[in-house]
């Protein structure tokens, strides 16, 4: 709650700052400073900020104001026409796309900016090394049959055989992606998982709970937890979560990170997006713990 408040406050403050700046040095057509409003996913916040800072150094006349608040908040900004670029760690929903079209008569354009490789975390003392998508589906999915560590052929950690499932709140981009990829179609999550409020919280609780299993971006790994190798099917080779495996498509749970603009991006916005996708911009992606976007 408090973090939401702080984020909200940051958004308001940065918004005010931008308005202030616009009045001071924006001017009518004097071409001094151009502002780009960039808002959305908390997963992408660090990345977007790093981009904005780098870009400001190279182009002092363009200011990219970045704020978080969640994927939904960014899309809402596009619909209300107050945001130039929305960061989104899930694809736009049909309902949202419709609303944007209704409000402005143009469709939103989608850009894939990089990949987020989701890792499956267990406690560092857990002897399990690899897991299949199917097993994950049976653990996390509705009516799934796997509830005990012994069913995976592992001695119960600290004598507690029950698998503690750590998940995310139901509208986080991470949750939605994990559900689409891992849970059998038409099913939902098994109720009773601990729905954590952030990627970092999942990893932290996994580190403290010997019987836990959870999922989060690979950038959140610490020494206290172990990342499992993941195989698509039983009998197939299992792959570790890393850049090569995500790019080659061998690692099965890596999701795209999107940016959306309303209609075709304006020239200065397009220049920014092109720079983010350039080799220089993609280096930032790697530095912040994500995987560069696949080349077209």
């Amino acid at each position, binding site marked *: 709650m408090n973090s939401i408040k702080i984020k909200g406050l940051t958004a308001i403050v940065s918004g005010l700052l931008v308005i202030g700046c616009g009045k001071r040095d924006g001017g009518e057509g004097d071409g001094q400073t151009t502002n780009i409003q960039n808002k959305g996913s908390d997963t992408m916040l660090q990345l977007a900020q790093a981009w904005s800072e780098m870009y400001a150094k190279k182009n002092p006349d363009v200011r990219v104001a970045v704020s978080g608040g969640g994927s*939904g908040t960014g899309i809402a900004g596009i619909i209300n026409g107050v945001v130039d670029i929305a960061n989104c760690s899930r694809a736009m929903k049909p309902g949202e796309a419709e609303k944007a079209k209704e409000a402005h008569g143009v469709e939103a354009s989608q850009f894939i900016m990089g990949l987020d490789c989701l890792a499956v975390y267990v406690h560092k003392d857990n002897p399990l090394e690899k897991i299949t998508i199917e097993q994950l589906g049976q653990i996390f999915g509705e009516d799934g049959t796997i509830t005990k560590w012994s069913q995976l052929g592992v001695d119960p950690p600290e004598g507690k055989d029950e698998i503690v499932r750590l998940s995310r709140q*139901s509208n986080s981009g991470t949750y939605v992606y994990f559900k689409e990829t891992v849970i059998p179609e038409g099913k939902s999550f098994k*109720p009773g998982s601990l729905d954590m*409020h952030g990627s970092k919280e999942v990893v932290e609780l996994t580190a*403290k709970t010997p019987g836990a299993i959870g999922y989060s971006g690979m950038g959140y790994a610490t020494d206290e937890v172990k990342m499992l190798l993941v195989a698509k099917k039983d009998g197939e080779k299992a792959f570790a979560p890393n850049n090569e495996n995500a790019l080659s498509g061998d690692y099965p749970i890596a999701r795209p990170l999107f940016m959306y603009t309303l209609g075709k991006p304006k020239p200065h916005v397009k220049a920014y997006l092109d720079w983010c996708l350039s080799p220089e911009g993609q280096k930032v992606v790697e530095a912040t713990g994500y995987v560069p976007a696949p080349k077209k």
Partner: protein
Amino acid sequence: MELQRTKWKAFYEGLIEWIIRICGISAVIFVFAIFIFVFWEGKGLLFSENFSVWELLTSEKWDPTHEPASFGAARIILGTFSVAILAMTIAVPFSLGGAIFISEFCGTRLKEILKVVIELLAAIPSVVWGFIGLTIMSILIRDLGSTTGLSVLNGAIILALMSMPIILSISEDALNAVPDSYREAAIGLGVTRWQMVYRVLLPGAKKGLLAAVLLGMGRVVGETMAVLMATGHALNNPFDSTFPFFHALTEVKTLTATIASEMGEVERGGDHWQVLFLIGVLLFTITFIVNMTAHFVVHGVKRK
């Protein structure tokens, strides 16, 4: 000159009176404005065909982002009540005992120290309480047989500690408000101190004590951050048909935590967004019922 001054005075008086009147009414206006706003945001879903209030209150399936979505908050409601009731069970005896001790049994010096310390307890922010629940309490509770330590019990203990300063200080005021003549009369009749507390002070301060407990209850039901961190936020029903019917070591979700955790990334204006506002309406209704009950109980006491 004389006349002018009185005119000015009358105007001045009238102005002040109006300002005070507006201050008095503003609380009512705010409450209604908030209720109407929250209700307005959720009304689209409330009156739509594929939604029923009955389902929201009784269905155990909460899956707002699935296709088709199911909005059943029964488990969340049970989670809220289980945490609140257990918290009150822990907090009320301790707070009332503490209030009786501070107002009747301890010396002036100790009284001052205790009151300051209790006020300090009230000043701790709820994130800090949540953090204590997440890190310290969870390890202690894990030894009782829980896998994560995050549970109804954890949340209830934290909430009990948070509501105790409120209940305690208001109860103490209520006990102090009992006239000394009652005490003197009781002691004059030769009763022990305990008999005096039990037979004279508690009945005398009944109204204030009830108000204290209900204010504490309000804090417990409405608290968000600490319960979000301490209860584990999992969709479980802590009640079932096997002995002992209530399992204090299960992880649960509460109404407040659900709103806080899901609001951030939700599609604005969508069904999920609206159902979260309806949960807000539900919370509002619960506190309203608690307060109305208090009002009627107190009135009943008064009439006697």
